[in-house]
């Protein structure tokens, strides 16, 4: 179980370092997605499976797709056609691919662990839900108002 934490910690640091030093935004986003996936593995190894699932769904899924959509909406001209060509060559996706394959191997390893081998006591979604809608119900209301403000703001800003 320690291997899960330290392996994905190394991958997270490497991919984040690579992501902030890329020239091309889409390359950086690919590496950043791998970084978020390894953060999800770290959450799982720390006994937070619900947070790990949300990290994959919301961060690596929704937020990164929003970034990609915006990069596609900004029509950057002739350079994008050159990019499309370079995407098809393997030297662009081989780095994130290898790192994601290591994460997949770690996930298969984690699936074969028995409960006794888990290094941490798991805090499952039920415990989080009981806390969330018990003492923290005001925080849920605040988060919903924040998301509403985000929705209205994004609608206003993205209009022509």
């Amino acid at each position: 179980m320690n291997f899960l934490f330290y392996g994905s910690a190394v991958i997270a640091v490497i991919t984040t370092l690579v992501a902030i030093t890329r020239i091309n935004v889409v390359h950086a986003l690919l590496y950043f997605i791998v970084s978020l996936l390894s953060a999800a593995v770290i959450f799982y190894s720390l006994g937070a499976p619900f947070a790990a699932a949300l990290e994959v769904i919301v961060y690596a899924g929704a937020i990164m797709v929003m970034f990609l959509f915006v990069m596609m909406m900004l029509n950057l001209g002739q350079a994008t056609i050159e990019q499309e060509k370079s995407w098809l060559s393997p030297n662009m996706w081989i780095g994130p691919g290898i790192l994601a394959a290591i994460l997949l191997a770690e996930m298969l390893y984690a699936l074969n662990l028995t409960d006794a081998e888990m290094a941490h006591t798991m805090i499952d979604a039920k415990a989080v839900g009981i806390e969330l809608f018990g003492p923290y119900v005001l925080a849920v209301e605040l988060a919903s108002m924040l998301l509403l403000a985000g929705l209205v703001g994004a609608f206003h800003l993205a209009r022509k």
Partner: protein
Amino acid sequence: MEITLQTIPMQHGLILASILFLLGLVGVLTRRNIVFVLMSLEIMLNAAGLAFIVGASRWGEADGQIMFLIILSLAAAEVAIGLGLVLQLFHKHKTLDLDTLNKMKG
């Protein structure tokens, strides 16, 4: 206080969170493309969330995960507004370079 079963020391998790936070900070300070700056902000928010998860697992309470959920919704709202602003700035100035965008008057 009850200490839960764990083999990964808390310090290691916090060190990892601070390394990721510093990488995000370096990204914000050095990059001049506005999309990279937004992405580095996401890295920093994610590192803060990781620190909360480390705390939650150290004490075996769900409270740290609640804070992570709040950070998650904050990041979603922030990136929606930020990317809307990026679209507007790009339509107006045809560039994503922060040094040319730093005058707020259109």
